[in-house]
């Protein structure tokens, strides 16, 4: 294993022992392989947004949730050259909700906020720190007051009735102190008259096996998550409301559901608020939706807030994720401040919670 090397390389002339260098190479490549797998486990494979058969799974208790244990990087897979392509890592816990699993039992002194609604604010497509639940938690000063755990239980396709079902059957197990329902004034009103149904879907990503089962890096290359649902579902979009009569019926039904949800929350010792959360692309038609609900629960309408930002900085905002109904960073930022302040103004936060000042 002796090979000459030019005198110019390291100033060493003559034959060299190559084995030590190959030892380094072998060890370094082994370490690199391990690191690649670790990174792939953290990031998860990139899965196109158009793939449906992996994200949601049927759940006998609450209808459907995200697929438990899923880790992937959301990729719009738009054609090359499309501006602002959002990719972001997603981790679903064993309970089928975003991020780390929350134990049902609260820690001493902890205050819990349960966020319910559909995908406008579910946080798929934006970084974790920009998610509404995380921003709400970060707005509290845990040094001077209680720790706030904001549990993100927003699930794609949920209308108010599905959120009520989730609250009754699972949400209350988290012992929330504050329950916040996000209501999209278009989709959710329609969903009240035409309840979204979870249709079984062929799993379009087969279960990992062989090398794919062992290696996260292999799954990353194959764009295949480690977890695939036993029974994937697709949520049928409700038919849009067309007549004024339907809209009036839907609003009346929304009021009933919100009343029931407020009562359920209060019976469990939690306060309750409603947020009018328009989905993207934003339109100006949604303002005024709080009028029906103000006497039932504190309500904040985010449509004018978003419209004001769009007016002040046209075309320069990240209110929406392009091509998605979901909110972008600016929308979650504005929403978190508005919701936090509304909860504080209505005295819905427990007294131990203190407002912090964080961007």
């Amino acid at each position, binding site marked *: 294993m002796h090979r000459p090397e030019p005198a110019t390389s390291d100033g060493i002339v003559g034959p060299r022992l190559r084995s030590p260098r190959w030892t*380094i190479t072998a060890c370094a490549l082994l370490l690199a392989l391990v690191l690649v797998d670790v990174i792939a486990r953290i990031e998860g494979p990139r899965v196109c947004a158009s793939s449906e058969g992996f994200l949601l799974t049927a759940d006998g208790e609450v209808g459907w949730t995200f697929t438990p244990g899923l880790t992937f990087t959301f990729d719009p897979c738009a054609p090359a050259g499309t501006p602002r392509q959002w990719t972001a890592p997603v981790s679903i816990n064993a309970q089928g909700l975003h991020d780390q699993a929350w134990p049902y039992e609260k820690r001493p002194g902890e205050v819990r906020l349960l966020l319910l609604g559909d995908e406008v604010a579910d946080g798929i497509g934006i970084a974790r720190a920009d998610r509404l639940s995380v921003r709400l938690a970060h707005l509290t000063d845990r040094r001077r007051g209680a720790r706030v755990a904001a549990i993100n239980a927003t699930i794609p396709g949920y209308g108010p009735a599905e959120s009520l079902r989730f609250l009754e059957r699972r949400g209350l197990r988290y012992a929330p102190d504050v329950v916040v329902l996000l209501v999209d004034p278009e989709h959710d009103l329609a969903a009240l008259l035409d309840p979204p149904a979870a249709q079984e879907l062929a799993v379009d990503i087969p279960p990992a096996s062989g090398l794919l089962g062992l290696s996260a890096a292999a799954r990353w290359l194959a764009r295949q998550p480690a977890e695939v649902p036993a029974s994937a579902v697709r949520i049928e979009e409700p038919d849009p409301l067309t007549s004024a009569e339907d809209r009036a019926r839907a609003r009346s039904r929304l009021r009933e559901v919100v009343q029931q949800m407020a009562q359920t929350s209060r019976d469990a010792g939690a306060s309750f608020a409603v947020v009018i959360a328009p989905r993207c692309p934003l339109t100006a038609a949604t303002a005024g939706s709080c009028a029906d609900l103000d006497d039932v629960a504190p309500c904040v309408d985010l449509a004018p807030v978003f419209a004001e930002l769009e007016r002040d900085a046209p075309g320069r905002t990240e209110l929406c994720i392009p091509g998605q109904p979901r909110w972008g960073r600016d929308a979650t930022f504005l929403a978190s401040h508005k919701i936090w302040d509304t909860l504080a103004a209505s005295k819905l936060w427990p007294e131990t919670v203190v407002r912090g000042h964080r961007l």
Partner: protein
Amino acid sequence: MTILDLASRVGAELADFQLGSWEARHSLFAHYALYGVLLTALGAAAAPLARRGREWVLVALCVASLAILGSPGIAGLAVLYSVSLHAVVERVPGRAGLGLSWLLLLALAAYPTLLPDDVFTGNTSHMREFWSFATNVWWLRCIAYVVDRRARGIAPRPLREFLLATLFFPTFVNGPIETTEQLAGHRRKGPAVDSWHELRAYGRMLARSSARFTWGAAKVLVATFYLAQSNETIFATAGQVVSHPRLWLWPIELYTTFYVVFSGWTDIAIALARPLGYEVAENFDRPWRARNVAEFWRRWHITFGTWLRSYVYMPLGGNRRHASRNVLLTFLASGLWHVWGALKVLGLDGYPPEAWLGFIIWGLMNGLALIAGRWWANVPGLEPVRAALRAHVPQMLRLRAAQSMAFAFVALAWVPFFLPPWIDIDACWRILLRMMFLG
């Protein structure tokens, strides 16, 4: 507090730390550290190659780090830019070459500030942060090469060495800021071991690097989660919500946090560079031991201080003429360099000119303090006072007093430095007044 209370508190803190580190796994720091180890391992795997081959492999890994932490488009632009700058410096003679070089440097200063979001092909939050930090370091290295070659007649470096030095991934995000000459001077044998004895020595070096990496990562994580948590609250309320002792401790906390986090990044950079064969310069030398502001700047962010001395202060005239003016201009340049960094992250909307005052005031405070220190040390009229102090105050006491005053001043100067852009500069004065029971 009972043992049970304490245990419960420790348990809660550990749970928070676990949650915090879980949250932080997609942060720029986590990506830099994780991908940094991966790229270092790949760089070390090039051990059997001759030096030139190893260096080209490292260049490729530097470009890969730009693509991973930034975007492939950014990586392509960076390579194109660096190759162009090197070609202009080395191949275009005379004033035309110099003019063109400075034009390219100005373009690098302007482009990232005006960079459209479309350049980034993913979630933009960390990419902008990365791009801001990285271009701040990269720009200084490019300026150094142009000045070294064109004004100081330093020998040319081949393209691969220039690319490697300007885009060196271990130090690309947060320094240390080394010029092409300095990095080449810090080259060691690295993985190119020639005997089993050298391999054992390399193994020992790896063990030391791993320990330093772990120590650096622990510093960054612990400081990020536990220190300076009340900054924005204190700024937003001008310190009204905290007690006076807490407010007095706060600048010290700012200083400590910044030191721990920044030196943690440096630890990691140095630890990543060593296995590749580069003994990168230290960036900190126990800054709390500085006896005055001038010494502080020889102990804090050393490579940036060295760069400012070499490429701003000395060209302005150094100590030869208008020394005070030169000091102020140098610190103003330092303040504006930080402004430029923040502008790239937040854009002009999020970081309007009135918000720039924080960094500028910080720079001027340091400059004025340095001038005052020189005046105190050198003005002949004060010699009797200095002599009296030397005669009557024990040396140790004088040393500790000087260190304490320097520490306190530097800590106070961090207050405008850390002013959030959405809070008016008045907050700093009101905090200062409250510290003195006047507000």
